[in-house]
């Protein structure tokens, strides 16, 4: 294992959609990229350029047609889907533009949702610490519907970080937020990277600062 230093390593990943009865869509073409611990990379691209496809593939949710995806040295598509799910539970956190909070759970329970997949010691204490750190302690037993969009995104962020993953994949996490809200979320992601986590963030917003900015154009990754 020579590349164990990488948290994420995509090698020649190609993903083509084959919608039934319509022409195939090449969403990713021969994409390679690496992300080290503490790395914070941003993928920019126009709508339809393949950003979401890239994150889903990197997160073990969408198998590529060619190429490989290694997370912390494991070729995740070699796993069975159940094993991959367990792997995600321990190693990968997702943040989405629409947050995807569970409407009938309160904030604490939403942050604790990953324990459904992997129960862990002191989960609740850690959840409370995260909620506190994200400035949501006063909202702890409110349902998501009673929160502002910025607060919801912070809850989603806390949930992604509960199991202390090695990698956070964030798909347009600031897409629904105003400038202040965006800044708070980005700060937390940078903070996570500083503590040794790796962040891959997809956005069409070119103003987001990063260690390295990559551009996707029609499924082709260009380095800048």
């Amino acid at each position, binding site marked *: 294992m020579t590349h164990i230093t990488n948290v994420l390593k995509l090698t020649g990943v190609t993903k083509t959609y084959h919608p039934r009865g319509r022409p195939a869509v090449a969403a990713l073409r021969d994409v390679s990229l690496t992300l080290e611990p503490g790395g914070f990379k941003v993928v920019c691209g126009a709508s339809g350029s393949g950003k979401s496809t890239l994150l889903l593939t990197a997160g073990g949710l969408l198998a590529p047609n060619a190429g490989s995806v290694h997370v912390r040295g494991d070729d995740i598509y070699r796993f069975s889907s159940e094993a991959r799910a367990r792997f995600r539970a321990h190693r990968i956190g997702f943040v989405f533009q629409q947050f995807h909070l569970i*409407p009938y759970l309160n904030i604490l329970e939403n942050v604790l949702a990953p324990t459904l997949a992997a129960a862990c010691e002191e989960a609740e204490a850690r959840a409370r610490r995260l909620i506190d750190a994200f400035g949501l302690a006063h909202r702890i037993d409110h349902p998501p519907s009673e929160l502002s969009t910025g607060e919801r995104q912070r809850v989603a962020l806390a949930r992604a970080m509960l199991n202390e993953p090695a990698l956070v994949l964030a798909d347009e996490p600031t897409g629904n937020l105003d400038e202040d809200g965006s800044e708070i979320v980005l700060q937390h992601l940078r903070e996570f990277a500083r503590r040794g986590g790796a962040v891959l963030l997809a956005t069409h917003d070119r103003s987001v600062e990063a260690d390295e900015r990559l551009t996707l154009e029609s499924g082709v990754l260009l380095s800048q």
Partner: protein
Amino acid sequence: MSARNADAGRQGLGVWTLVGREIRHRKPAFVIGLLCVAVAIATLAGAVTLLSAHETRTEEILAERERETREEMNRLENDYRRIMRDMGHNVMVLHENQSLAALRSAGHPNTYMPEEYVYELATGGIETLNHLLPVLQERITWPGRDLEIILNGTPGQVPVYHLARFLTEDGTAYRNPIIEAVPEGSLNLGHAVAQELGLQAGDMATLMGETFRIHRVNRPQGNEEDIMVWCGLDKAQEWLGRKGQINAIFALECICDIDALGQITEEVHGILSDVQVLEFSSRVIARGQARQRAEAEARRAIAAEINHRQEMGEARRAFTSILIPVVLLASGLWIFFLILGNVRERESEIGILRAIGVTESKIAAVFLCKAAVLGVIGAAIGYFAGVTVGAAWAGISPLSMEFVRSFNPLLFLASLLVAVALCAVSGWVPALKASHKDPADILREL
């Protein structure tokens, strides 16, 4: 912290918490699901309760009818016994040469047999005759009173010794004789004789130069018995000059063998060849036949009742045997679509749960657990509703003990099992569908 926080648990979130929260969040849909399960189980429990109540009721009614009939039969039988005794004997053994015309015109037999005949009959192993009464009868005029009487000498009943039922426990004495012997030195008088002579029981009277005490005066019978005078057989034999002779043996036939004259005759002829057997007292026979008719009628009524209730039970069983599968199928489909709808509604949730690493089997478990909750609660509601309605339909008052007894724990258990199975089977496909959803598809759609 609030209870709501505390029950999230130290280890994190459990499937049951998730299920409970989701149910609370989508109450109306859950209530509709409950209703559906409850209706199915209520139908099942109600039908079973109704049918078993019907069966119990049938047994009760039949037991009641059976008891009534038995009582009626006993009453008739007692009547019959009493009438038999009051009216006298119903079989008469006469010498074979006895002319029936002479018997009728004289009012007593005039052909004689040896007295031993009765003992031969009594010891000859006869089965059909119970009580044997040898008599020597003759029409005479009460000397000095110008009164026609039928003198009737009898030693009293001769026991049929081998018939144990007529002996006392120690087997020595004759139990409960129907006709008692006339005590030594006394007479029994027919009603008309006593009236004519102005005699009562206890009075003294003179007959054939001897003085007797009147032992008994019989009630009026409206036949020859009213002009009879009973005395000891030896006295009659002495007065009539018929030493060692009798002219009739009366017998009380066993009352359950009313139609057995042929059998009786055959038996008697087996012991005594030169006698004839006569049946008389046609009222007794009519009464016996009436009793048999009444019994047959009662049996027919019971049979009709059984038949009616069986048909009713059959109809109810047939109805429920169609109703139950139809209701189970309909509610199964209903639950299927409800859970399918729930899966659709929760697609984003399923997607996000899959993304954060919840396995397919756990997603399926979430839906199956919810189906189980639906089944258990629905079964409980349906069971109580069903038993109540079923019992009410069967005419059991909700205030009675019988109503309380209608709640059968085994049926409750069966209801739970059926409901959970119904929900599990109906929820299986949607749950698998939910767990197999491609999270990438779901997440991209949102």
